[in-house]
């Protein structure tokens, strides 16, 4: 606020001085030659700075972010798990097998952010539980033009101890990104018009999909809205 006031005051006063001087037909403090030297130096300096920044951009590590495709944006992992449709590999964080003895307890805990369980009973028998963890997806912006930041979200995987599973608190994390783009107004002949402002983000919860044999007794200690039981024909 303070800075804005200072800038506006500076702008208004400098413009007022120029208008007043021009109307009086008098010159501003510097000689004409000084103004032209300043003009040449300014443009030369900007060219040098542009070259330096271009060279730096080639050597600096840039974040590996990709634009979200429309199909990726529309793909619903939850629905795919429920309906048994194939899920793209990149959505899968890890797949593990766990041996359980007789019963499995799924415990409720404070995750830090959203998590959802899908529990499917299989008729295969045995005592091996298949665990598939689907990553939380994070997309900035509210349309399909945003960036997929999912790979940067750190995840603590579910902890298995004996015949018990729970998801530990997710790590505290602050992601900071900076994007630069030239003004959209002057980029109309390019294909590089971008979002003016990344307003909001969409984050889909992490999913833990457990395929538990019928022979294993289940003790689900989760809140009713944090899991779904899936039965296949």
């Amino acid at each position: 606020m303070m800075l804005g006031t200072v800038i506006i005051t500076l702008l208004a006063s400098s413009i007022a001085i120029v208008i007043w001087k021009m109307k009086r037909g008098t010159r501003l403090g510097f000689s004409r030659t000084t103004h032209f030297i300043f003009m040449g130096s300014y443009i030369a300096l900007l060219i040098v700075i542009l070259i330096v920044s271009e060279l730096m951009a080639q050597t600096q590590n840039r974040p590996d972010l990709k634009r979200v495709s429309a199909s990726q944006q529309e793909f619903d992992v939850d629905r795919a798990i429920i309906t048994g449709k194939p899920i793209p590999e990149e959505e899968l964080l890890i797949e593990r097998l766990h041996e359980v003895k007789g019963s499995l307890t799924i415990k409720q805990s404070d995750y830090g952010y959203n998590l959802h369980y899908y529990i499917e009973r299989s008729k295969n028998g045995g005592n091996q539980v298949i665990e598939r963890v689907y990553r939380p997806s994070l997309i900035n912006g509210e349309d399909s033009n945003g960036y997929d930041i999912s790979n940067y979200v750190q995840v603590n995987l579910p902890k298995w101890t004996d015949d018990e599973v729970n998801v530990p608190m997710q790590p505290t994390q602050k992601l900071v990104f900076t994007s630069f783009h030239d003004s959209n107004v002057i980029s109309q002949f390019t294909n590089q018009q971008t979002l003016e402002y990344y307003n909001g983000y969409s984050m889909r919860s992490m999913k833990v999909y457990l395929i538990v044999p019928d022979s294993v007794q289940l003790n689900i200690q989760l809140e009713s809205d944090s899991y779904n039981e899936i039965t296949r024909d």
Partner: protein
Amino acid sequence: MSLTHRTAWEVVKQQFLYKLRSNAAVFTVLFVLQIISMVLMNGAAMTSEMGTGSFELEWNSISTDGVMGLTFFWAMVFGFLMTTPGQRNAAYLYVATPLTENLANFCLFGFASLIAGITTVLSGGFVKLLAQLQDVQLITETAGLFSEPYQFFTRVLAMAVYTFLTMMIVYTIFIIIQRNRLLILPFILLWFAVSQSTTPSNWLGDVIDFFYNEHSILLFLGKAGVTAVLMAALSLVISKRIEVKVS
């Protein structure tokens, strides 16, 4: 052939050079405005912070919007300055006519627009460098001069043309106002009507879209050229009457 006889083009050239020299300070003002925007406003940075539980995302978006905005503001002031009586009286130093006077002004606008276009687009390098030096995770969404030089120069062209049109439009408006000061009222009312308009689409938006939605350079130049010629013709006709009135 007479040594004292000068063609209209020679007069225009001489007047243009005179106006360029006498308005050199205006260019310095442009550069100061751009530096203020680049350094103090960081181009035009916008930050959004979002978080849920243990997770937080901060997204800083920096662009040359601020530099561009101030350059357009400067273009408007420049367009106005060229219509002030002080500037018009300078024409009496030469054997000038309203035609050569206006043509010299248009040449000056062209030169100023080119400088504004070049410096605005180049300022992107400075804004980007500031971000690079801050050791941040920087995503560059605009291709650079080395990677896509063609797109770089189209941005210079677009900025120069928009600046030129801004100057021409403001110049014509103030020439009309110079003709009759009361005409400032309809322009003020028009400005309020447009700025207070709550409808999603208005005629000003349509006019801007007419240029902004054009992705063909040739068609864009055609549209801008026709508009500039119309503005030039209008200002020329009106300024001729101002001269008659003054004399």
